[in-house]
């Protein structure tokens, strides 16, 4: 636990007060997605495809319809016909036609678990019995799971009307390659031919799941006037509103989405799976309907992060200066096009190194798995695993310290990055220097232990946010915002409001309002909330201060310009009026005091992390354990230090899980073989050491308190940090994740 160095600058920013929603969450009172109950509510169930790829010839619901207690049945035929159209919503615009088909199949199912019908009934037992009575006539088609298989000329094609985008000419035959993206600068081939050392390799990763503990759940209630209300757990209730309206052809303002507490998301809850289906069921039944997933539904049918095949050639001069890079990465896209991970992959590839000669190509490849969806720094960890592994190899071959080789190439403020934009106030070099100076980096290692280092970055984001600040009659403060609190954001909003107003943290209460109670905010994701919504809160608080100064001026009968604001009080000469006094008098000075800010900031700055990982390999079993782990990150400035450290620690452990254990396993029949926490093994407490989170504060000058955003960066470095440590321990380059005991044991055996 590292106290911010410049704590004295601020009264509250950087401290660790109790979060405003804490008591409810430690006593079991908080209402999450699966907890909400509406009066007279029906229970829903979804029938899912048992095949990875099949044509639907017909669906017979007649037996289910007559089961007593069944109130509504919905199939793809109940959804309006949609043309392809892009709808702004989650972290990127989405094609509404594919969104709808993901929620409910029409003519074809394209993955194991794809919804084909839904039932609402008076009890969960009846709903479950009813879906068993629905008969679906499938024409089973050949399926394809892996990237390379999906690209073969004779591969089963998922969509006859899909032609690869991003090629010089639009192709004439359909393909599973949904998209190709490319960045080319300088002459990478020439640079590589002149390099002192070149590493080439192929790296592979399986799809992994976000693994939030709360399964998706919602309740929808349709009203006879054509309006609907939805209660759900989501990272963005405005996204749920936009996507549901788009899919069902409704007016946006006719849908009111109430965000419940959310039990983790990590990007996976920035879309809809259940909500449009629940609204249709409710419309047919005339009663509220709950739809909730079981754990296996979550694994089978919600977005994993892409698996990948990555080919890299990275060259450096004798002093370690990177001369050129060629990278081609292929990401799994899942059942439908639209995954935007390839863009992020493109932008994140070596974004933090100066590489004048580079050629980077990315592919989004469809196959019969669920449509991939955002997972913490979506698209970055995969390609970064290859880049940081290659850096490690170059350092080893050239005999340079792994941190030194990175310092030699790291982008500094003013350097032009891969996208041709000069970097602003970045703290990359500071973070690397801090890593080098950290006692962990020079600590002795035990037998069979080795140390790995890797960097990683995420661009962060800003985007639209609305917030309101209101003064209650006694001077206490209400902040209203539109971003679900997924990891302590109410606390950071309260800190920023209290800091700005000059009052105590406890005087501020924060409410996450529903879509009909506050203006638009983009979802909680992209590491944008503390930055963008924080800025909105600060601006609204500043506008409230302006009103408070006017009111005080009125009470004193002086010009508003003569009144100052400081320490939570209006000041004029030696006269003072507290916030409470001004609020109490507001009835006679102009009425209620409140202000709103609706903004769309884009002056965010990227985050950067350096992770140091010590592993120990048991040569008899191949088991890898993490014995020490340090994660250093340029956070801009921490608002609530505990929750910033928590993001770094949690992201690091997710990355460690990705490196060591986690993978989607499909069997020969194309069915997911491990749709539960027993076989999809996420890290548990006994797998982990303490994670030393070190905050490096290089503030963002465009945010009043210096915020950059912290959530995503920490999952980017661990894959390579772990792999580099294991590679060092056994002397074999780890090119394939996860690094399971059987894989390590096999490699050790083969090497003997």
């Amino acid at each position, binding site marked *: 636990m590292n106290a911010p160095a410049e704590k004295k600058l601020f009264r509250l920013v950087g401290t660790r007060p109790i979060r405003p929603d804490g008591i409810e969450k430690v006593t079991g009172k908080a209402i999450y997605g699966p907890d909400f109950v509406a009066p007279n509510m029906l229970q829903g169930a979804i029938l899912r495809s048992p095949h990875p790829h099949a044509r639907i010839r017909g669906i017979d619901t007649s037996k289910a319809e007559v089961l007593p207690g069944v109130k509504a049945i919905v199939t793809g035929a109940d959804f309006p016909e949609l043309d392809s159209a892009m709808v702004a919503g989650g972290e990127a615009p989405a094609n509404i036609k594919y969104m709808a088909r993901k929620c409910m199949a029409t003519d074809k199912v394209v993955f194991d678990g794809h919804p084909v019908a839904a039932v609402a009934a008076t009890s969960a037992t009846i709903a479950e019995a009813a879906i068993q009575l629905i008969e679906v006539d499938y024409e089973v088609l050949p399926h394809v799971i892996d990237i390379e298989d999906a690209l073969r000329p004779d591969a089963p094609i998922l969509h006859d009307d899909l032609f690869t985008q991003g090629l010089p000419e639009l192709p004439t035959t359909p393909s599973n390659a949904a998209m190709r993206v490319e960045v080319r600068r300088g002459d990478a081939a020439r640079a590589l031919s002149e390099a002192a050392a070149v590493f080439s390799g192929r790296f592979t990763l399986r799809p992994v799941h976000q693994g939030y503990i709360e399964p998706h759940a919602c309740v929808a209630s349709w009203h006879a006037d054509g309006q609907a209300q939805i209660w759900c757990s989501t990272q963005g209730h405005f996204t749920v509103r936009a996507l549901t309206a788009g899919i069902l052809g409704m007016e946006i303002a006719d849908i009111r989405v109430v965000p419940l507490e959310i039990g983790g998301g990590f990007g996976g809850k920035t879309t809809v799976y259940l909500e449009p289906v629940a609204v249709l069921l409710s419309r047919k039944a005339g009663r509220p309907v709950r739809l909730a997933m079981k*754990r296996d539904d979550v694994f089978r049918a919600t977005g994993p992060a892409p698996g990948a095949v990555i080919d890299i050639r990275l060259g450096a001069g004798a002093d370690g200066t990177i001369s050129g890079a060629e990278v081609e990465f292929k990401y799994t896209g899942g059942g439908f096009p639209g995954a935007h991970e390839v863009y992020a992959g493109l932008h994140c590839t070596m974004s933090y190194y100066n590489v004048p000669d580079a050629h980077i190509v990315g592919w989004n490849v469809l196959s019969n798995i669920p449509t991939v969806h955002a997972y913490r720094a979506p698209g970055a960890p995969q390609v970064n695993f290859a880049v940081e592994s290659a850096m490690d190899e170059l350092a080893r071959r050239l005999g340079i310290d792994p941190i030194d080789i990175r310092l030699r190439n790291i982008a500094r403020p003013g350097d032009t990055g891969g996208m041709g934009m000069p970097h602003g106030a970045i703290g990359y070099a500071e973070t690397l220097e801090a890593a080098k100076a950290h006692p962990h980096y020079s600590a002795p290692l035990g037998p069979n232990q080795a140390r790995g280092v890797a960097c990683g970055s995420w661009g962060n984001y800003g985007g639209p946010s609305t917030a309101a600040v209101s003064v209650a009659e006694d001077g206490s403060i209400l902040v209203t915002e539109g971003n679900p609190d997924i990891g302590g954001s109410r606390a950071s909003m309260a800190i920023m409001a209290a800091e700005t107003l000059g009052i105590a943290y406890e005087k501020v209460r924060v409410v996450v309002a529903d879509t009909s109670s506050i203006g638009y905010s983009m979802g909680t994701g992209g590491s944008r909330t503390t930055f963008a919504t924080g800025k909105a809160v600060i601006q609204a608080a500043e506008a409230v201060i302006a009103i408070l100064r006017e009111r005080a001026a009125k009470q004193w009968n002086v010009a508003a310009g003569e009144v100052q604001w400081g320490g939570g009080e209006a000041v004029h000469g030696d006269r003072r009026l507290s916030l409470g006094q001004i609020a109490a008098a507001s009835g006679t000075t102009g009425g209620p005091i409140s202000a709103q800010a609706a903004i769309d900031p884009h002056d965010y700055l990227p985050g950067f992390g350096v992770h140091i990982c010590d592993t120990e390999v048991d040569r008899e079993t191949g088991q890898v354990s993490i014995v020490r782990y340090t994660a250093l990150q340029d956070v801009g400035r921490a608002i609530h230090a505990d929750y910033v450290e928590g993001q770094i620690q949690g992201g690091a452990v997710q990355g460690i899980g990705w490196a060591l254990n986690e993978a989607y396993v499909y069997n020969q029949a194309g069915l997911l073989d491990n749709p539960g926490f027993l076989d999809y093994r996420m890290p548990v407490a006994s797998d982990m050491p303490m994670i030393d989170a070190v905050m490096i504060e290089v503030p963002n000058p465009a945010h009043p308190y210096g915020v950059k955003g912290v959530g995503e960066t920490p999952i980017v470095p661990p894959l390579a940090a772990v792999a580099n440590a294991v590679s060092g321990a056994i002397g074999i380059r780890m090119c394939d994740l996860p690094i399971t005991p059987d894989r390590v044991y096999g490699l050790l055996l083969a090497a003997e």
Partner: protein
Amino acid sequence: MSKLLVSTSVNGDPQQFLCDPDTTLLDALREEMGLTGSKEGCGSGDCGACTVMLDGRMVCSCLVLAPEVEGRQVTTIEGVAEGSRLHPIQRKFLEHGALQCGFCTPGFIVAAKALLDRNPDPSESEVRYWLAGNLCRCTGYDKIVRAVLDAAAELRQDRRAVA
């Protein structure tokens, strides 16, 4: 299927409820009694979000059939605080920022209390192994382990003060 009438004690209060023979204790708590503090993360005994105490023993309530609690004592997260006074473990979770989304938190608190009730002075690795049945995807466990160790220290001090 006719319903069974079950008489039990939940958080010290007598409770009666009707359920199907195959209803889980977790569903009975959540759906019949409105005690939604116990969460379902998996329904298969792999995440610990549904952890409750049954006659003083820690169990996954998703793996217990509701009719099995006939005549027995169930304690859930709703019974951990004494009225509005938080249990020290709950307070330490807040002080350490040991929750992010909070969905795993009830299960962790019930499990940690079970540990500290039987072992007032656990080592870090004893805490980690005891809590290995509880999944948290948000925190990386660091602050959870610190909160439990800190709560144990405070509880030991309280006991010494009483003695």
